């Protein structure tokens, strides 16, 4: 038995986030996004709708994008997580972040952390996506400002940057 917990009991959860091992406490019903933000103080991951629709809370868990408001924190026990804080390395932005900056891929920026993580997942699988593939790849991420045109442009540009620097194989900062 990995874990059996009683009501009201606080559970200790250990997981790797952006290459670092964290331990924190949560109730079994605590959602992963609140664990990341309130317990681990990783507030880069945003809570948008809190109902699993908007994708602002998207993170990579064991290499795949998930909405962290649609998982319990206890489900992240022993998981390997990447949040938006894990993208930049040594004070240098990730190519996806650079591309969003250069192509005005954000306005208010609220959806951006999730948008970046979905873009990363898409480009790792498909380094040179078509516009249609990009739009499908980010269909789980809602943006109320941009109308998506510049986001699509940014993802396309990010793909070019990552292909150039050979990063499309999925190397991200650890």
């Amino acid at each position: 038995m990995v874990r059996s917990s009683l009501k009201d009991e606080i559970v200790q959860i250990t997981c790797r986030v952006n290459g670092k091992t964290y331990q924190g406490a949560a109730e079994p019903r605590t959602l992963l996004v609140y664990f990341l933000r309130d317990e681990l103080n990783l507030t880069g991951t945003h809570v948008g709708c809190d109902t699993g629709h908007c994708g602002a809370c998207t993170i990579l868990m064991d290499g795949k994008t998930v909405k962290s408001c649609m998982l319990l924190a206890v489900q992240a026990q022993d998981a390997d997580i990447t949040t938006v804080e894990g993208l930049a390395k040594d004070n240098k932005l990730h190519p996806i972040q650079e591309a969003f900056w250069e192509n005005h891929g954000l306005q208010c920026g609220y959806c951006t952390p999730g948008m970046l993580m979905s873009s990363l997942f898409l480009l790792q699988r498909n380094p040179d996506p078509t516009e249609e593939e990009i739009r499908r790849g980010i269909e789980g991420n809602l943006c109320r400002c941009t109308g998506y045109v510049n986001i699509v442009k940014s993802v396309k540009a990010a793909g070019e940057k990552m292909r150039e620097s050979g990063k499309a194989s999925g190397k991200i900062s650890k």
Partner: protein
Amino acid sequence: MTPKKFDYYAPTSLREAIKILHTKDDAKVLAGGQSLLALMKLRLATPSVLVDITRINDDLSFVKRGKDSLILGSLTPHDVIERNETIKKLFPILADAASKIGDQQIRNRGTVGGSCCHADPAADLPTAMTALDPLFVVRGPKRERSIPCAKFFVDTFTTSVSKDEILTEIRIPLLPRNSGSAYIKHSRREGDFAIVGVGAAVILDSKGVCKDVRISLGAVAPTPIRAKSSEKYLKGKKLNESAIGEAAEKANEEADPPSDMHGSREYRLAMIKVFTRRTLNLAVSRAK
């Protein structure tokens, strides 16, 4: 939004998971959680015990080609079903359906067994499965049993899986040569639940005459249903435009669709015909 308090169990074996389900009242199995957690956050579901089966050591996430069936592990994610080459070749209907579920994040996490056990009549995989007539293999405290598809979906959000049983496999009988399958979903926005979902599996002979056909309809009754009068009409006919058109006209005879904010009953009855025609055409085109 936070679910109501519950006990959380993460057993490491199927046996242990079944034991917990057997001894606890009001327990729910947690797989990918993309439907269950949404309901729990809205407090539409308030189980007092959650049994997380994603940490058990028994492998329940696989796609295996058996001698006469394709076997899917119940924890196989939608994303795998959408992209798996064997599935795309043998049962494109399943890839069609999986690719239309929610969005990438949901497809990464949601599972085929979870979707079938959740039994939302508007969900894509239950409807697609209904056109393939699979066996659902469930394990309980004493024995394993196979539930035929026609007996699996009982009512909205209700299956014939008992409270101390866990779905482990779905066994889909292989289709012979000259067969094709397809699923088309009608929704206002990509990723929404279906207003109408139609699945079809057609088996033709070498001259293009229909030997057998199954047509399934989603979101038009408390469970996915078969359009039996259309099926009956098509058997033994050459599947040309006029036969498919005539079959589509009959497709809503067994349906009893609800009216809700996504579409009125009348609208759904009309759309069943349109999407049955399109789905049959796609399935037939794949059979050639």
